[in-house]
């Protein structure tokens, strides 16, 4: 069967799996940002923790994703459902770029700007919200962008532990030695990664422009 016909014939399953994939990526990214940005802010206040937290994150990145999924299986509650497990693993992977960019973005604020802000009587909270986060925002978004693209790719592996998503097609296609089936997973995943990259790139650029 030619590829377009195959896609038409399987459009319902493709939509369902794309939806699952989006959900895995979306929830993981929300968690990664919710944890990673505060963690990066914490590091900017206590640089002593830098090596520990970024080091742990780096080690996390070196664990092959398939192995990480397997390692997390025995964890209670998390291991009980494949999607929870996948989301935890994806969140851990996405964390490093978000934490690191939040930290470097804040650390990159010019010293005189920070000094003037403190000298004029901004409270630590005002310094963070009015100066540091706005000036770091495009670097932070760049981190989120990198993390999202990685997560879209890694999330295909989640199908190996039964968490669904576009990886279902890929693994099935590999087993059946059927390129059409593989592409039914790979093409939407690639498009998803490209669109995420494009959209977050637009946001990033708009931040650069308003902040000169």
């Amino acid at each position, binding site marked *: 069967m030619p590829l377009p016909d195959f896609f038409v014939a399987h459009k319902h399953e493709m939509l369902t799996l794309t939806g699952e994939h989006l959900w895995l990526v979306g929830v993981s990214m929300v968690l990664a940002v919710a944890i990673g940005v505060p963690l990066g802010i914490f590091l900017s206040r206590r640089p002593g923790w830098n090596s520990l937290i970024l080091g742990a994150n780096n080690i996390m990145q070196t664990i092959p994703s398939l192995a990480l999924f397997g390692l997390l299986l025995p964890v209670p509650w998390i291991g009980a459902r494949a999607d929870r497990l996948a989301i935890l693993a994806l969140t851990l992977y996405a964390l490093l770029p978000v934490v690191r960019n939040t930290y470097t973005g804040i650390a990159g604020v*010019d010293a005189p*700007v920070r*000094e*003037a802000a403190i*000298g004029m009587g901004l409270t630590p909270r*005002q310094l963070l919200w009015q100066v540091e986060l*706005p*000036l770091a925002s495009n670097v932070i978004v760049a981190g989120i962008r990198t993390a999202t693209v990685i997560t879209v790719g890694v999330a295909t592996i989640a199908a190996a532990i039964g968490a669904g998503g576009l990886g279902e097609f890929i693994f099935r296609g590999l087993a059946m030695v059927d390129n059409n089936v593989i592409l039914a997973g790979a093409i939407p995943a690639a498009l998803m990664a490209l669109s995420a990259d494009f959209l977050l790139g637009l946001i990033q650029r708009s931040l650069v422009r308003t*902040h*000169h």
Partner: protein
Amino acid sequence: MNDSPAAAIEFVDVTYRINGNRTLISDLNLSVRRGETLMLLGRSGSGKTTTLKLINRLLAQSEGKVLVDGRSTTEWDVIQLRRHIGYAIQEAGLFPHYTVEDNVALVPRLERWDAARISARVREVLHLVGLPYDEFAQRYPDELSGGQRQRVGLARALAADPQILLMDEPFGALDPITRAEIQHEFMQLKKTLQTTVVFVTHDVAEALLLGDRIALMDSGKIKGVFAPAEFLRSPDDSVQPYINAFRATQHILDSGA
């Protein structure tokens, strides 16, 4: 300040050690009179910036007391203390994501002035530093020259009408011509304000030009406090190198004429 003590700022036996060991300032006693411009003159590393930062508690002394308006800086709420004191630094430290107007309005907004008062004040101080509101208010710092940025920095420091203004080599990074212009404007500005100014510089000519008095610093100590005329006549050993440097430039000017 109506219950005003004679000195706007007073250092009493102040010592500052970094991390508790290396001494940057030792046994400093200094009184800054209300309304005067006091120049802290010294070479790099002499402790003049450290001294300045002890006033708005960007640094906290290890020993002794710093009094602002008669009250120890440790008794002030530190945020109130800083908002009560204008602060202008060499690189200006303007917020790059704020327009000129928003930069200047910063402290009045933090202090919750009403919008009409803020807007009137921004116009007023921009005018004071020679930047027409209509031309400059909506620009961003990266659309300004170095001299203009420094003027905005000064306008921002003056915006909340502080009784005290701290200036840390504010004109140090400017080219000589812009520098001379802005120094001249600052002298005019001083006449219209009653602000007490503490001004850090390593430039003798600037100290002589702008200061009502000059406190000469060396190795974390004050070597003496002089009116500009006294400074030039002083036989003091620590003053001589400055006078010689100053005379050298004068000499070049004289021989060229």
